[in-house]
Each structure stands twice: as structure tokens, then as C-alpha cells.
């Protein structure tokens, strides 16, 4: 139908079978190269660098490390250096120069248990302020590191003495619009979402969405915080409007149930902050668009400002695999180009078309 042909299409461009479990895949900024991070069957960590050549991926380099690698980011590195920060199964945070990967540029045993999620800010020419890396771990702590300071984190969000810990499953930076402001959002396995303000070193907001939080992301790290998407188990995700914080009710949100399975990742399109893609446990990808309400904030009965959440509409969905798609990354350089890694040991490069028309 005419309407159908105007919708964005998800075209599978390249599929590459891997011989290891891939946990994270990332585009190398300013290039047509991508990285796959994972764990080999023999229990070691693998980093593979591929380059897109026509309709296939060419392996440029393979690096093996003693511990399996769970996550990685380029967020805190400069465009010239493009160092990769990784978190591994042992709780080590390492920063690697891919040209000379034998020894890490920075290394610290940051956590007692696996680092589940990592994010970086202040690099790649995006935003201002010091480059920082945040890691969230199964030991229940969230730590912020500065690559210029060895051994100790610059911020540590840990459970109160005597409190039983909950696994931190995901972390994200946001609100980094000037040199001082920065927030870290962390999602835990009991459904807690906590927002930490690094400027005031305090807990700014917390909420509980009942199901374990698999992934959180701000629509942009380097602006005044606008929207936050949190995905969880059982197919639900919540979009919070972060512009207006009510003293008791917190942030307004809209939630959507996409499918019966866990939503593993959410990633916003770098070129359009109202479009995001969620990847699911049933091997499917959903492309969503957020529409703002007519009025983003209103006054409640006592006169304090309250946010108004908008609505989310599904643009396209496609099922690529039978196994969960655990990682997703949009290319910051080419609109619509993205890579996803699934637990069927395959990495796929996809192109989403017609994003200009949204």
C-alpha cells in the first residue's frame, strides 16, 4: 500500500557469523569500521575489528584478552585517539589503544563482580567537560572514573551499609550540557531507576518500574536532559520526560508494551533524538517515534509544575533472529546505518531507510 511504502524499512545489509558469543558491538567513530566484543568458548575475551566492504565484513584485527569482555564504549575518548574503554566479566575497567592493544592505556579493577554496563561522556567532540566513564556492576555499585586519575573512582554510588545489594544492569550519562553539569542514570534488576547528579553528588530522583531494568538511555547526552527511555523485562519500556521534575511525582512518563519478551536494548538515532530502536528477546527490532504533547508541562492542583508525557508510535518492526538481540548501535556518521549483535553468534549490519521523511 502507499502508506506502507513510506514507512522506514529495515534492510539487512550484511550478516556475519562469529565463533564466539558477542555481547556488545560498536561503530568506530568517523569510519566504516565496527567492533565486536565478546567471550570465546574457552573463557577468554575477544575484540574483533571489522570493516564494511561492499556486501561483506572484512576482519581487520582480532585481539584476545584473558577475561571475557561484556561491554565497551568510545564515549570518553577524543576523536584523534579513539581509545576503547571496556568492562569485563571480572570487574576490570580497561582502556585500550587499538593500534597497540597489548597493554591497556588505563586499567583498574573497579568492581568485585562483572561490569554489566559502561558509558562514556566528554569525548568524541560531543559536549563539554571532563571525559568520564561510568560502570555499573553486579556488585550493586555504580562508579564514575576519570581516565586521568588512577585507581580511585571520582564518584561511587554504593548501597548503604547493611543493605542487601541489587545488580546494576545498565548505566547512562546525561545532562552534560556544560562543564559542571552531569547526571548518571542507573537501572537495577529489581526495577529501580536512580538518577544521580554528579555536580551536587546526590541522588536526584528515583523510581521503580516493577520489572528489572535492562537498558536506560538519554536521547542526547550533551544537552539539558530531555527524554529518558528505560526498557525492562516482560516487554515494557517507559519514556520519561526529563524537562520538568515534580517535587513528589518526579518525571512524567508514558509506557508501552512492545512484545512479550525482554527488551534488551534501546538506542536513540544520533541524527534524530525522537526516534529510537528497541531490540527484543524474541530477536526482533522495533523502531519507534516519540511525539511531544501539545503542552509539555502543566500546573497541578498545588500550583507546582508537572511534566506531561507524549506518545510513542511504532514505525516499523522486523524479526531478524530467533535469539535475543543483545546489543545495538547506530552509526554516528551515516544516518540509518546500525549494527546489532545477537546471541545466535551473528552480527548484522542493517540499514534503516526513509528516516529523512519522518
Amino acid at each position, binding site marked *: 500500500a502507499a502508506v506502507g511504502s513510506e514507512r522506514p524499512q529495515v534492510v539487512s545489509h550484511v550478516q556475519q557469523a562469529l565463533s564466539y558469543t558477542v555481547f556488545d558491538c560498536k561503530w568506530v567513530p568517523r569510519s566504516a569500521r565496527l567492533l565486536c566484543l565478546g567471550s570465546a568458548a574457552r573463557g577468554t575475551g575477544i575484540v574483533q575489528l571489522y570493516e564494511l566492504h561492499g556486501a561483506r565484513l572484512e576482519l581487520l584485527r582480532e585481539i584476545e584478552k584473558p577475561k571475557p569482555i561484556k561491554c565497551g564504549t568510545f564515549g570518553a575518548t*577524543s576523536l584523534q585517539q579513539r581509545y576503547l574503554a571496556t568492562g569485563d566479566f571480572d570487574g576490570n575497567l580497561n582502556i585500550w589503544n587499538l593500534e597497540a592493544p597489548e597493554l591497556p592505556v588505563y586499567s583498574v579493577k573497579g568492581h568485585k563482580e562483572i561490569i554489566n554496563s559502561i558509558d562514556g561522556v566528554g569525548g568524541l567532540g560531543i559536549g563539554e567537560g*571532563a571525559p568520564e566513564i561510568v560502570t555499573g556492576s553486579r556488585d550493586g555499585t555504580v562508579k564514575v572514573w576519570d581516565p586521568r586519575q588512577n585507581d580511585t573512582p571520582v*564518584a561511587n554510588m554504593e548501597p548503604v551499609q547493611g543493605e542487601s545489594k541489587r545488580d546494576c544492569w545498565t548505566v547512562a550519562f546525561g545532562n552534560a550540557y556544560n562543564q*559542571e553539569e552531569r547526571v548518571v542514570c542507573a537501572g537495577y534488576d529489581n526495577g*529501580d531507576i536512580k538518577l544521580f547528579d554528579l555536580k551536587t553528588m546526590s541522588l536526584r530522583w528515583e523510581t521503580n518500574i516493577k520489572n*528489572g531494568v535492562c537498558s536506560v538511555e538519554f536521547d542526547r547526552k550533551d544537552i539539558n536532559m530531555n527524554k529518558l527511555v528505560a526498557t525492562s523485562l516482560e516487554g515494557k519500556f517507559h519514556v520519561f520526560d526529563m524537562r520538568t521534575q515534580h517535587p513528589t511525582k518526579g518525571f512524567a512518563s508514558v509506557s508501552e508494551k512492545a512484545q512479550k519478551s525482554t527488551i534488551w536494548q534501546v538506542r536513540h538515532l544520533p541524527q534524530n533524538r525522537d526516534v529510537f530502536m528497541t531490540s527484543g528477546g524474541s530477536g526482533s527490532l522495533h523502531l519507534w517515534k516519540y511525539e511531544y504533547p501539545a503542552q509539555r508541562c502543566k500546573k497541578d492542583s498545588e500550583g507546582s509544575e508537572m511534566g506531561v508525557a507524549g506518545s510513542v508510535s511504532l514505525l516499523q518492526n522486523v524479526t531478524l533472529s530467533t535469539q535475543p538481540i543483545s546489543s545495538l548501535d547506530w552509526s554516528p*556518521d551515516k544516518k540509518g*546505518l546500525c549494527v546489532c549483535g545477537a546471541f545466535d553468534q551473528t552480527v548484522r549490519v542493517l540499514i534503516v531507510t526513509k528516516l529523512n521523511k519522518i
Partner: protein
Amino acid sequence: MPVWLREHRWRQTLTAVYLSLPLRGARATPANIFCSEQYLKVSIPPFLFEAILYAPIDDTNSTAKIGNGNIFFTLYKKEPAMWDSLTLANAAKEKLQHLRENAVLKAHEKAKEETEAKKITKQEHKKYALEATMKVEEEERKRIEDLKEKERQKVAKELELWKNQQKDGDKYKSIQKKGKLHREIEPLKERKSEKMNKTRISNEGTSKTRLKSTKGSCSIFSQNLKEEQLPAPRAAATIKVNFTPRVFPTALRESRVAEEEEWLHKQAEARRIINSDLSELEDLKEEEKNPDWLKDKGNKMFAMGDYLGAVNAYNLAVRLNNKLPLLYLNRAACHLKLRNLHKAIEDSSKALELLTPPVPDNENARVKAHVRRGTAFCQLELYTEGLQDYEAALKIDPRNKNIEKDAEKIRHLIQGTMQSS
């Protein structure tokens, strides 16, 4: 006895017979006419006309026209010959019968054949339709595939273009970087000359050496520039967090929501039950038939110390609705006060039975039930049973100091009796 129609008129040609049958006012429909090769019957109750034809006719092509109070038959002969008469004369009764039966049989067979033929044609039509739809769908699918293929190719081309752009861009950038470095060194040179009191000539000398230095140090150089603009690392600090407590360590899907729903449902049901037996209760006032009102009354009497009165109230309430656990619970308390220990145990047990499934909602009630039963057991000197109940209560509510103290006391008592015996 049917009325025979005999006033028929007929004439014939070599190939056909034309028969005209007047109907005495009766209305005829095609269903009333029955015709086979040699037998013709028109039956419009109570009228009847039948004829055993002289010779066989072709009954498929023969026609009958109904109209003007008349049926006009056009019967085509099988063999062109002139008939002596319309019907066979001297037809014996058995022959008639025989012929009739034959006729019916033949008609049946023909009908069967016709249905068979119809079925076959229907199937063929269906097949054709199916094939046609399949073709149409196939075309549609191909069209979509083609579209997708085109998209894919277009996109692949764009990607290649972009990639090549990247490569060129990289080359261009590295050239640009060198140029930029040159330019950066200029203002730095001037700044240094302002800061330090060296002569310009010596500065130029130093800067020249910098220019000649290797690329690596140049990049460090430019980075130093940048670092001056970056803020220093944050002062280390810790934020303490609390987590939302969960009864069960896992996510919502393993919570007891289902059981909580069941409990609420059960309570709603219980409130709606009204036991029959209203014959005895007719002299009661309207409010006295309400179990809730009676429960409140019982509570008030308990508070005032009128335990017997409270028991009566609860008894009546139970007669009206025996599914409310709180009635049994409160009655157990009364019995405890009245030292009817066995009754207290019974009532607490009944209350506990009704307080399933165990959910946070009915925690308080369950704790009370266990405590009351435990007390009753202890007063009967059945200390082990009593301790069991106290421990159950503690399990539900571990923070209650009174229960803990009492449990301790009982344990001591048990140990005391064990030691002495």
C-alpha cells in the same frame, strides 16, 4: 381415494406427443409433475393423473408448461413412430406397479448423476479460482521483493559512496591537521613572547625546533593545549543508595500478585454470601442480619468486657456468613478470655483456614490467629504446640518484640519441664 383426472386431450406427430391436461381449479408446480421414460404422473392432492405411455420418450428434453389452469406437455418420442394410443392399454396391475417402480428408480439415478456432474463442475471452478488467486498473490510478492531489492541496492551504493568519502576525508584531515598545527604554533609563540621576557629571536629559534619535531610530539603538543581547557578530575565522593525492598529477590513476574488477587476475590465473595436459614431470623431487625454490623457490635462488647455478649454476636454473624475469617478470629479472642480454650483453638484454626492464600494483606490477621492459638495451647499446658504457633507468628512478623518474648518464655518452660521430668 384420489380423484382421477381423465379429461386430457392429446395429439401427436411423428416425433412428439402433445398432451393437454386441464386442472380442475388446482394449482400446479413443477414439483407435482413426475416423468420418466415411460411413465407420467401428475399429482396435486387430491387430484391424480397417471399414464403409462405407449412408447418410451426422451424425458430430459420433454417439457411441461403450466398455465391457464392447464398443463401442456411436449413429449419427444424416442423412436419416431405413430402411437396407437397415449397409454398402454390392457396394462396388468403388476406391470403397472413394476413400471412405476422402475420409473422412480430411474429418476433417482438421474438425479444422482446430475448432482455428481454438478459437483465436478464446482470443483473445477474452485480449482481455477484458486490458481488465479495464487497467481495474483505471487505477482504481488514479486513486486514487493523487487522493491526491496532495489532499496537494498540503492542503499548499498550510497554506503560505498559514503565509505569512499570517509577515506578521502581521512586523507584530507591528516593534511589539514598538519596545516592546523602550523597555525596553532603561531599564536602560542606570540603568547609565550608576552609571558616570558625572552627576545623574539630566541623565541623564534625555540619555536622552529618545535616545528621540526616529530609528528608524535606535535600531537601531544596539541593535546596539552586541549588539556588546559578541560576541567580537572572531580573530587571523589560517594553517594549512598537504598534499594526498593522486595519480598522475593526476583522481578515482578515471580511476585505473588496472582495470589493477592485470589485473596481479594475470596474476600469479596465471602462478603456476598448470605446463608439461608432466614426462617429463624425473621424476628431480627434489618441491621441485625448484617454480619459486619454484628461484628462491630461484638467488637464493642469485647472492648467493654462483655465476652459472652460478644460471643453471641459473633455466633449470629457466623450463622449468617461463615466465610469471614475475622469473625472466627475475634470469637477466638473472646473464648480465650472466657477460658474456653478448646473453642479458642477451634476458632483460630478455622480462621487460619479461611486466611489462605497467605499474602501481605492478611498478615496481621494471621499473626493474631497464631498468637491466640499459641496462647490457648500454652494455657492447656501443650507447650510444644504453643511454641509452634508462636514461631509461625514470628515468621510472619519477625519484628514483634512481644511475640519474641513470649516465645522465649515458652522455650524456657519446655526446657524446665524436660529437665525436671
